[in-house]
């Protein structure tokens, strides 16, 4: 079984029911956790497995769990929150897991909650994922009835309730601390860090926030062990990952592949290469807030450190392909418009810098660009970069811009000096 995350996802059925899920060992990981292992051992298994967060940052999951302060008799136990607010442009991986195999997520939540001794878990789901909400709601009822969720689950001394919160929408809700404010019924502005959520999160309690795909890995680690999990990866990172491709490729889609699968294999074998009549010009490896890479980077393995070394980030692992007939300057303008609109407005560099970025890019594509605008844009990528803002929204927004200025400078200059795109946009 080399595709644990998607083993229950089949073309001949809408989604995996509880019975389907049980047939492939479903909820056996939870049983093992609460009857044989204990919370600390579960943390250790996940640490040993080398699971890294699949939301984009790649933080060690077991390590994150172990940062929750140990309090043997807490007044208020910690919280577990599952980040199901998938809104990064170009990213469509969690939707599959949520819609097609909801019990996999619920088992993962129960195990993760047990590991940090949380008695309440929230699934923070983006409001637009209506089908996912319906299926999760039904799956939760089934899991409660079957005693996988609720008081003294599986006859253990551990009790857990899981609540589904459907969001009212805003990209910033995917940022961990903004998400917690949204759950508290406030505007989703990020919180200053430290303190980090694992120490003081939801209503001031220690809170672990994990991405959907991260949590979906957990049941399999418990069922088959850390060594098995590590063996799934092809390089330094452990496990498998949902990789995707969108844009002008022959077969846009999503595939579960080993960590460390070369980008070329994803784009050429799985996505079928470029559509007829189009050439690959570049790509964003993991969502809107990652740096462009070029065809020369096709042999880079998709894992956290190798993509970073190539000058970008693996991010969410869903590749956005730039073809030779799409103007990179206009593409960046589309991306920056998104970030400017979705800025929560809490801190100045982001609130003012992103609209300024949009204005400059718009001037350039509309023939009002000046040569010094390129320096101003480069200055903005530094001013809005890491360390100057409360959260990663603005630094993320600068990644496609700074790499476009580096790799597609000619395109910018053609607009400024000759008032036309390098190639006519289609």
């Amino acid at each position, binding site marked *: 079984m080399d595709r644990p995350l998607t083993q229950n996802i089949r073309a001949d059925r809408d989604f995996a029911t509880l019975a389907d899920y049980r047939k492939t060992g479903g909820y056996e990981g939870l049983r093992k956790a609460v009857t044989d292992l204990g919370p600390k051992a579960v943390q250790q298994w996940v640490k040993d497995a080398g699971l890294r967060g699949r939301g984009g940052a790649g933080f060690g999951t077991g390590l994150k769990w172990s940062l929750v302060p140990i309090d043997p008799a807490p007044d208020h136990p910690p919280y577990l929150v599952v980040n199901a607010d*998938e*809104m*990064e*442009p*170009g*990213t*469509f991986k*969690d*939707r599959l897991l949520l819609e097609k195999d909801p019990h996999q997520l619920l088992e993962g939540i129960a195990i993760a909650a047990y590991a940090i001794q949380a008695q309440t878990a929230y699934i923070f789901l*983006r*409001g*637009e*994922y*209506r*089908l996912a909400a319906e299926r999760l709601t039904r799956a939760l009822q089934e899991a409660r009835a079957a005693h996988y969720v609720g008081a003294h689950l599986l006859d253990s001394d551990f009790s857990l309730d899981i*609540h589904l*919160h*459907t*969001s*009212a*929408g*805003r*990209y910033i809700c995917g940022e961990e601390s903004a998400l917690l404010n*949204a*759950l*508290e*019924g*406030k*505007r*989703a502005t990020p919180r200053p860090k430290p303190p980090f959520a694992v120490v003081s999160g*939801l*209503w001031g309690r220690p809170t672990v926030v994990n991405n959907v795909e991260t949590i979906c890995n957990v049941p399999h680690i418990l069922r088959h062990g850390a060594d098995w999990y590590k063996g799934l990866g092809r390089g330094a990172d452990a496990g498998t990952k949902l990789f*995707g*491709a*969108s*844009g*002008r490729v022959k077969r*846009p*889609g*999503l595939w579960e592949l080993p960590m460390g699968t070369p980008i070329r294999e994803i784009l050429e074998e799985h996505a079928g290469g470029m559509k007829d009549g189009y050439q690959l010009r570049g790509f964003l490896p993991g969502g*809107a807030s990652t740096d462009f890479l070029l065809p020369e980077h096709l042999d880079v393995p998709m894992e956290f450190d190798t993509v970073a070394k190539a000058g970008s980030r693996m991010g969410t692992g*869903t590749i*956005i392909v*730039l*073809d030779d007939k*799409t103007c990179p300057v206009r*593409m960046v303008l*589309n*991306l920056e*418009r*998104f970030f400017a*609109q*979705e800025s*929560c407005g809490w801190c100045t560099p982001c609130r003012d810098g992103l609209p300024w970025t949009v204005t400059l890019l718009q001037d350039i594509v509309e023939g009002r660009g000046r040569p010094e605008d390129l320096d101003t844009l480069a200055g903005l990528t530094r001013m809005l970069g890491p360390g100057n803002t409360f959260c990663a929204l603005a630094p993320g927004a600068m990644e496609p811009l700074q790499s476009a200025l580096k790799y597609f400078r000619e395109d910018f200059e053609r607009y400024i000096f000759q008032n036309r795109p390098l190639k006519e946009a289609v």
Partner: protein
Amino acid sequence: MSATEIDEINAELPHYEDKSAVSIEALKIVQKHRGWVSDDSLTAIAEYLKISPAQLEGVATFYNLIYRRPVGNTVIHVCDSVSCWMLGGDRLRDKLCRHLNVKLGETSQDGEYTVLPIVCLGACDRAPVAMVNGELRPDLTDNIVQELLGE
């Protein structure tokens, strides 16, 4: 607020540590029954949750899916993010708007359709996509009018 709305809000209360946390759920519940959140509704919710109307207004205007103005019976959200844009989403959206004789954010004259932009809907492998009253409509083509309005 109606008795049903209050019952639905009360059902959410035990899931959160304090009453004000239910504000987003409450806005969504009222909107589900009335189509949008009027000033009167906003004040009623704020009173019920014991928070100031100003605070609730700040919340209501922050989130994309809370409407502070009336919308049509059918709300069409058209994705304007990168993958849909690359595959002609903007052109299709303009075509739809021309057909309905609306600008983004407006409601057609018969009160039936409101067209709104929305960020990435997480279906980029089926771009361009839109959402009609919450239901995903992928793989849009030049027949967008027929595909979304069934005309």
